[in-house]
């Protein structure tokens, strides 16, 4: 569990904006994985199997939350608000990336996080998200295009 904890929390946070919610979802996923452990095929890699459970747990939690309360995004932050102080630059960039991620469709942000952050292959992600591999490529492409633009904008003025 120690080995996959951070990865699970990051993937859950890609779905849920709130870090506490993400941790709750990651915890649910670990408990669920424990219950389903006999369904795991040891001939296959463990990571994708677990991350599928994490993604499902996070999606379920996000759905339950969205039923209770709709959480509107602040468009000023994503759409190029005032530049933060240089000292807080990194954390500000992180915040903007989180906001930008939150604006992406759920499958798109999961795909880009699983591919570019966690290093899973398109085929593995396709298995996790239960979509064709081509769909994963497309989702990663579109997510990157948006996020790269954000990063480029961030670098340009300096």
């Amino acid at each position, binding site marked *: 569990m120690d080995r996959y*904890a951070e990865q699970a929390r990051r993937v859950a946070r890609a779905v849920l904006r709130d870090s506490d919610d993400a941790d709750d979802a990651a915890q649910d996923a670990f408990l669920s994985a424990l219950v389903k452990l006999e369904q795991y095929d040891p001939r296959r890699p463990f990571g994708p199997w677990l991350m599928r459970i994490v993604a499902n747990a996070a999606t379920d939690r996000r759905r339950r939350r969205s039923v209770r309360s709709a959480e509107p995004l602040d468009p000023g932050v994503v759409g190029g608000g005032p530049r933060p102080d240089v000292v807080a630059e*990194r954390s500000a*960039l*992180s*915040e903007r990336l989180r906001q930008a991620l939150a604006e992406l469709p759920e499958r798109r942000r999961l795909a880009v996080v699983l*591919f*570019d952050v966690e290093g899973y292959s398109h085929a593995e992600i396709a298995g996790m998200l239960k979509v064709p591999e081509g769909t994963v490529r497309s989702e990663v492409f579109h997510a990157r295009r948006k*996020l*790269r633009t954000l990063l480029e904008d961030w670098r340009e003025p300096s």
Partner: protein
Amino acid sequence: MTEHQMPFDHQPDTELGDALRRALEPAAHDAFVARVMARVGTTRAGSWDVLASWAGRGIAAALLVLGVGFAAGRMMQSTVGTASIEEALVMGPADSGGAAIAVVRGSRPPDASVVFSSQRP
């Protein structure tokens, strides 16, 4: 994050990946692991509690069935037990009843002449 990485490249974008990792980096790793492990412990204990309650109910049901079976057996025994061998012999033909009772109740083995005698004692 250069042009050659566009659009459907098979390699992760390390710069974007690092930035996203920092953005999504969870805090308090040890606390999270401890929290999940504690939940795992209670979940296991919970499942054992469920199994134990099932076992308790099963044992109670088994004892109840045994008790009912025992009581039914005792009742049947008490009704059948009224007709003992002696009484069955007593209820035999009136003319041979006394001899039969003497043979059964006697502490010594019967005399063969009594048993095989055609005359009444």
